[in-house]
């Protein structure tokens, strides 16, 4: 792979007494969507949280756009150009939708043109602009969470299960937003349990098992190889 935007080399992460990541080696190509797949509990969320810095890597290195960010604090990683959408969405429920978005514009005021674009991608945000974010539905919160990450240009987006528990119509909106990001040349590392969504969005794939990456390749290859899916993730064609 030529000039990846993100490289993890031998990353180990402990959470309390548990050894969760056991030497993750991963490269995320510049531009496009890399799917991080695997069964529940294999370390996908921990990998994203280690990249953004919420968990400290016990050993190994994390390199972003050619710079070693392993020792950087979380805000410095975000300011370097990494956007993070956590599994729990991280919405500030007592703040309005507007305040959530204003907060997301770290480097200055919210750009009106970018906001207009976000309203076309996520119309409910405009409808509920002044409403407390805590009163939004699950799908609307997820839209806000992703819109917040998109409020400023980021070079890499880490997105953790954006379609979890959402209705098909909302999943379609999410997929549309991620395609739009991809079209603009952003790099995305996406954890996703919904294999249909993963197939539709992913360019490359990394599959995890027991805290390690056990397979990397093209989504086109994985999507058409049922035996490989079964072997890597216990998926069968009937399941999707």
């Amino acid at each position: 792979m030529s000039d990846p935007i993100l490289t993890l080399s031998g990353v180990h992460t402990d959470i309390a007494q548990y050894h969760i990541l056991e030497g993750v080696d991963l490269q995320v190509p510049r531009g496009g969507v890399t799917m991080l797949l695997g069964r529940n509990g294999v370390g996908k969320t921990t990998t994203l949280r280690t990249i953004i810095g919420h968990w400290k890597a016990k050993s190994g290195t994390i390199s972003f756009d050619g710079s070693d960010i392993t020792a950087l604090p979380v805000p410095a990683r975000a300011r370097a150009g990494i956007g993070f959408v956590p599994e729990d969405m991280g919405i500030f429920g007592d703040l309005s939708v507007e305040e959530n978005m204003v907060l997301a514009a770290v480097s200055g005021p919210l750009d009106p043109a970018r906001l207009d674009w976000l309203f076309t991608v996520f119309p409910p945000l405009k409808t509920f602009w002044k409403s407390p974010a805590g009163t939004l539905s699950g799908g609307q919160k997820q839209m806000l969470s992703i819109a917040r990450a998109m409020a400023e240009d980021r070079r890499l987006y880490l997105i953790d299960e954006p379609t979890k528990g959402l209705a098909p119509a909302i999943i379609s909106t999410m997929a549309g937003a991620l395609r739009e990001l991809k079209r603009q040349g952003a790099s995305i590392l996406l954890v996703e349990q919904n294999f249909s969504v993963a197939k539709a969005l992913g360019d490359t794939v990394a599959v995890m098992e027991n805290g390690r990456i056990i397979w990397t390749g093209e989504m086109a290859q994985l999507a058409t190889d049922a035996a490989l899916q079964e072997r890597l993730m216990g998926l069968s064609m009937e399941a999707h």
Partner: protein
Amino acid sequence: MSAAPDHTPTFAALSLSDRLEKAAPFLLVPVLVVLGFFAIGTTSSWLTLTVSGLAMGMMIFIMASGLTLVFGLMDVINFGHGAFISVGAYVGISVLLALSGWTGAPSLVLNILAVLLAVFAAIAVTGALGWGFERVIVRPVYGAHLKQILVTVGGLIVIEQLIQMVWGPEEIFLTRPEMLKGAVTFAGAAVEKYRLLAVVIGLILFVAMRMVLLRTKIGLIVRAGVANGEMVEALGYRLRIVFIGVFIAGSALAGLGGVMWGLYQEVITAGMGEEMMILVFIVVIIGGLGSVEGAFIGALLVGLLQNYLAFLEPKLALISNIALMAAILMWRPQGMLPVVKAK
């Protein structure tokens, strides 16, 4: 460009009981004031006690407001907060004693200048002390509650002893500046001038704090940081710097509260901050962790209830604060307006 599918969400209107449940904490103070009026019976006594209760509540709020944000932002339990109250009182009162020529003069301008200098000195010293306290005592124990309690209590004791070394072990008596002595008469009630001033200062500070928290970006970061500090950092904000700023501001406010409390009581001791911490913690807990509005309502409830009961049933006043806390926590175990859920 991808557009969302047709989606026209609406909010269901809240029922009357839901709206009442949300508004209930804000109604407690007016309800208590009205109940106090009927229980006390005479307008003049009620007015005097109400102003006294509000003044006491405002001073407690000033001392507690920084602590609740520190709790909420970094999950830090700072028992050393009382030290800032004592140091603020000693520094401020020392300035006033040094300016006795101004405070004793029957000149409003000189009196106000003396008080302002005392307040600025107290704020500056306790703000700087707060910065040092955070660096030396609090920072090494982030995330460790038991250690936080132990070291901050230790810091409180050390600072109290230092106060006694500098100013001596005896309490210091003082008199208020000339123009703040005495009372004004209104509707047959004698209301102390100083208490009125305390109410005005408390209100100004509360409004200013709300303006900063609601209308500025830094306020937005603080509010978001109290709710979910991890996410604020993931957006790119250095929450540690914000926290240090809040810690310093909270320490300075405690120092201001110390000066005001000293002038209110007309006596200061090294242990006054430690004694006030019981009330301050009650206010922070019943208000709900991380909530400035909750601390404000809680402080007014504490002040008013204590004053009303001291008049109506003096023995009950001894347990009024604990009884209030028990009642509020039975009603709302997380406090009235929690921003951070207690763990």
